[in-house]
Structures are given as structure tokens and as C-alpha cells.
């Protein structure tokens, strides 16, 4: 068990190294660098090449590619994640500044989609073949077929413009310190994000519940004369929940990517927005660190899931 854990962890290291190199190389191949974005085109054209070179030099952009990579890597290993090229703010601060916003959004979305997804999925499975089941299945299919940003725009149209219930975007407002103050801002992006997630959870928990219902222990429970709801909810749901929870755990890091569009639509100051901004302005260090963190999170979570499923399922042997 321990060696398995260790080995899985050790494999992460070369993968992350390779990955960071790939990202760095990719950015190197991108046309333009931070300097060409920091200065407006008109201004840029009238600057002497020597002046431009001086700016590049000052920003550490004129070293050869490999040297810059090694420098960056050295910094990361020492826990120094670098600085934003434009503001010189430590990336650590930027990431920790943005992370809560994204987590707030994705935690909310996961919570809502899990509760409703499992609820609808279970109902759907219990009433298999009914109108309600078909309607839910169809709704689920719609949920994964309509582009996410259209959901967002429709929500704005409805809740902000027509009903005038909710603010249009942003996260914090001056003087709004408590969670309740911020709640109105959180509602729409969370709902839109979770609406697209519910579909997946629902489909999965429906299948899982159907699977559980056909197992022998359910029949045994039923034959013992337990009331139907007890059989379904206490016995069935408990068993069907495990794979669903694994699925949800697996989605956590992917959500980080999934919030990109939602954060754009609702101007949510999270990691996704920061990433797009940094990509557009070629702010290498930030792009690197966000891509790196995300990947690390994905790899780490998938490692945890492997471990978790291995612990749950005695058939999977670790050694």
C-alpha cells in the first residue's frame, strides 16, 4: 500500500517536469512576447530596437530559452513561483487572490449539481420508463447539448434585464463584506455552471441506482419485508452513491477549466479569467503557474481517486 502510494507520487514528478517543459516551449513558440503586449502598437513602432531590447533585458526576456526555463524551474523548486511580468506582483499572491473566487463558484456548483443530480437521477431510476423519467432524461441531454455561454446569456437576459433580480456580474462590492452581501453575485454563475453539471451527475446516478436495484442484496432486503422506500433509499442509494461520488471528485479539477467560460460571461475574477488575460497578454509566468497548478491538481486528484477506489474495492490489488 505504502509503496504503491509512493510510486504513484513519484511518477507525478517526471510527468510534471515534462509538462512544464512543454508549456514553456509552447509559450516560446507563441508569436510576440510580453513586451509587445505591454506597449501599444503605435507606441511600439516608434521605439528604437535598442530601447525595446533594454525593456526585454530588464524583464529577463532576452536570455536564451533554456536558461529561462531552468531559472524558472529552479525558482519553482525553491518555492518561488515567480512574478507577474507586468506588475511584479508575486504569482503566489495572484493565484491565492483568485483561487477563492473560483473555488467559491465551483464548490457551489458541485454542491448544487450533486444534490439535484443525485436526487433527479434516483427518482428517474425508481420511476424508470415513466413520463417523469423520460422528461428528466431529455432535460439532461439538453443540459449537455446547449452551449454553456448561451445558458449564461439567457440567465442574464432573464434575471438581470427582465426580472431585475440579480446583479449582472462581478464578485465583490465595496462595503459588502459578509457572505450574504455577496450571495446575489454568486447565484447566477453558480446556477448556470451547475445546470450543465447536473446532467452528467443525473445520468450517472440513474445508471448507478439501476445497477444497485438489480443486485441481490436489494432483493434480499425486499424479501425481508422492509418498506420499499427504505429499501430504495437506505440500501440502494447508499451503494449507488459511491461511484457517483468518485465521479464528482474526478470533476473537481476539471471544473477549474470549466469555469473559464462562466467566469468570462459573468466577469468573475477567478483563475479562469486570470488565465485568459495572461494568455492574451503573454504573461508567461502566470500562464505557466496556472497551467502547472491545474495539471498538478488533476494528476493529484486522479491519484487520490485511484487510491480511494482501491481502498473501497478489494478486487483491485495494489501490489
Amino acid at each position: 500500500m505504502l509503496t504503491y502510494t509512493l510510486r504513484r507520487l513519484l511518477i507525478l514528478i517526471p510527468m510534471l517536469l515534462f509538462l512544464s517543459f512543454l508549456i514553456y516551449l509552447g509559450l516560446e513558440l507563441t508569436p510576440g512576447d510580453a513586451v509587445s503586449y505591454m506597449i501599444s502598437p503605435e507606441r511600439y513602432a516608434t521605439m528604437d530596437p535598442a530601447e525595446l531590447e533594454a525593456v526585454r533585458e530588464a524583464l529577463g526576456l532576452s536570455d536564451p530559452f533554456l536558461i529561462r526555463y531552468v531559472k524558472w524551474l529552479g525558482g519553482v523548486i525553491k518555492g518561488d513561483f515567480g512574478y507577474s511580468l507586468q506588475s511584479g506582483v508575486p504569482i503566489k499572491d495572484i493565484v491565492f487572490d483568485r483561487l477563492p473566487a473560483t473555488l467559491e463558484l465551483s464548490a457551489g456548483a458541485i454542491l448544487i449539481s450533486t444534490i439535484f443530480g443525485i436526487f433527479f437521477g434516483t427518482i428517474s431510476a425508481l420511476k424508470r420508463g415513466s413520463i417523469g423519467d423520460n422528461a428528466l432524461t431529455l432535460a439532461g441531454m439538453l443540459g449537455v447539448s446547449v452551449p454553456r455561454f448561451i445558458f449564461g446569456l439567457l440567465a442574464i437576459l432573464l434575471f438581470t434585464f427582465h426580472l431585475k433580480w440579480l446583479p449582472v456580474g462581478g464578485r465583490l462590492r465595496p462595503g459588502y463584506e459578509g457572505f450574504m452581501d455577496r450571495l446575489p453575485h454568486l447565484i447566477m454563475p453558480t446556477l448556470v455552471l451547475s445546470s450543465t453539471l447536473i446532467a452528467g451527475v443525473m445520468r450517472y446516478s440513474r445508471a448507478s441506482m439501476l445497477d444497485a436495484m438489480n443486485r441481490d442484496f436489494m432483493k434480499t432486503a425486499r424479501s425481508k419485508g422492509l418498506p420499499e422506500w427504505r429499501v430504495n433509499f437506505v440500501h440502494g442509494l447508499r451503494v449507488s452513491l459511491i461511484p457517483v461520488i468518485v465521479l464528482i471528485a474526478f470533476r473537481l479539477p476539471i471544473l477549474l477549466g470549466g469555469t473559464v467560460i462562466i467566469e468570462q460571461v459573468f466577469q468573475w475574477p477567478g483563475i479562469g479569467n486570470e488565465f485568459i488575460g495572461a494568455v492574451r497578454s503573454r504573461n508567461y509566468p502566470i500562464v505557466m503557474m496556472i497551467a502547472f497548478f491545474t495539471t498538478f491538481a488533476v494528476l493529484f486528484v486522479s491519484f487520490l481517486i485511484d487510491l480511494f477506489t482501491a481502498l473501497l474495492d478489494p478486487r483491485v490489488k495494489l501490489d
Partner: protein
Amino acid sequence: MSEARETILTLKDVETHFPIKKGVFKRTAGHVKAVDGISLEVYRGETLALVGESGCGKTTLGKSILQLVKPTGGKIIYNDKATERDLCRLSQKEMMEVNRKLQIVFQDPQSSLNPAFTVFGSLQDPLKTHGIKSKAERRKIIGDLLESVNMRREQMDLYPHEFSGGQRQRIGIARALSIEPDLIVCDEAVSALDVSIQAQVLKLLKDIKKERNLTYIFITHDLSVVEYISDRVAVMYLGKIVELAEVEDLYASTMHPYTKALLSAIPVADLDRRKKRILLEGDVPSPVNPPSGCPFHPRCNQCQDICKKVIPSLKKFETNGYEHYSACHFAEEQLSQ
């Protein structure tokens, strides 16, 4: 009969070990010794049965001979009358030539035919690879083959799921015969079939053998089948041969307690021959860490001190005028029991 027989295959100390990777850096922690030092001669025209409980390495040995599993040590020398070649050291191209002469029939009629192809589709590629370029010719050959396994020529255009298990097994045999081999390894070729169908297939195998002057290595765990089809029998236990003899000789003068135990387990209708049943207790030990001394000693009802310390070698004896090999410290005592 024992004099001047021509060997077709000679196995010398053949070993097939599978590494077990362990720990953080996947270093090799040990080996599964599936085939552990087997020396054997197979004579042209005979049927040699390989018997043993499941997990004793007989299937691995069969696959090792065809290089479907690469042996990790020893030599497998194939004599095709002109030359003698060590199969373990052949290049892929040379092996392809040898493949014309060595074939295999598998156990599972479900998975031995490709469900996506008709019989013709499955069988024509080997022919193509081995030089038969014209389609008409291939159709003729395959049709003939089907007829030779008692099936109809037209059935070559059907898909595997349209056949019964016995039919499929016969197609598997036809496939092995398609490029006119000298030697066929029959890997549990009838075990998955119903008894009545088993008999048909066994008879077929016997007839074909006579017709085409084939050599069989017949892998099975079923001693009643052995009795029916084979000339000689090699009994395997934990990757080693423990007893080797002519078939009648083996039944008459058993020289190893393991063989005795196996034989006693055959349900026999003939009450006269009924012997006291010897129960094999416990499981086959792990081939990763075989017991010290005689590998069979933990389950042997006649185990003595020497058995726990010294590995018995396969010694040659003579019974009823035949060569008889046994790897038991007390081989001759077995005869008297």
C-alpha cells in the same frame, strides 16, 4: 518400439519465468517459474500428452514451444529432417518458416475464432502469408480443410457465431492444419466441449493424425482423454516434469505419488480397477516460492525427511521393458505399493 525413433523436438532445460515487479521503482522482486527446467524429447509421429493440474505450467510450456511466450532459458531444438534449429534463437523471418510446421489448437471455442470475420476470412490470411496468392486456390484449400474436419465446404462463408462449440473447435483444427504442419500443440483442445462432442473431436484428431502423419503434443488435465489419445505421457507439477512414461506403462506401473493421486481421481466405471482414492490436500503451492526439496512434498502422503531437503532429479527406470522416468526419491518403492 523404443529403438531408433526419430526426434522431432528436443527440449533442453527450458525455463519460462515471468518477472514480478515490486516496490517504488518496480524492481524485479521475484519470478513466477511457470516452466522451470524441462528437458524432453518428442518423437516424430507420436502423441505426447502433457498432464497436470491447472497452474502447473503445461499451457505455458506449449506456448513456449511455439514462441507465443518467449522462454527465458534453455533450448528448443526443432528437427525438420534437414536441419536442427533452436527455436528460441530464430529471427522473426526464420520463425515464420518454422511456423509452417508447428501449429496450435486452442482451448476456448468461443474466442478461438475472430467474430468479425467469416471462416474464410479468418483462415485465408495465414495462407496468404505462407505464399498462396490466388483467392480461388485459397477457397479450394479451405473448402477441402472443412471437409476434412467433417464440415461442409459452403460453411466457410458463415460467421463464428453461427456455429456450435464443436463445429468451432473443428474449424480451429482445420485452421491449424491449413498450412500442413508436422506438429500440432493441442492446448486443452477438447476440455471446453460436452463429453459427446469431445469424443467426436478426439476421434477426428486421431484420424487426421493417421492420415497426415502428424505429431501431437496434447495438453490436458483430463487423464481419461490422455488414455484415449496419447502414446506417451509427461506429468507436470509446478513447472517441472515429475514422471514420463508410455501411456500404458504409466497406468500400470506408476512411479510418482502425484501421478498416483491424479489417477485415483479418474471416475472409472470398471469396478475391478477401482483403487482407493488418494485425496490431494491443499492447493498447488505458489510457483513464485516453490517449496524446498521435492516440490510435491507438502501434499505428499509419503513424505519423508529427505523429501523436504533434496530436490529429486528425473531418473530413468525401466518397467515392463519401457523407459520410464520419475522424479521421486522413492520411485521404486512406489511400484511395490
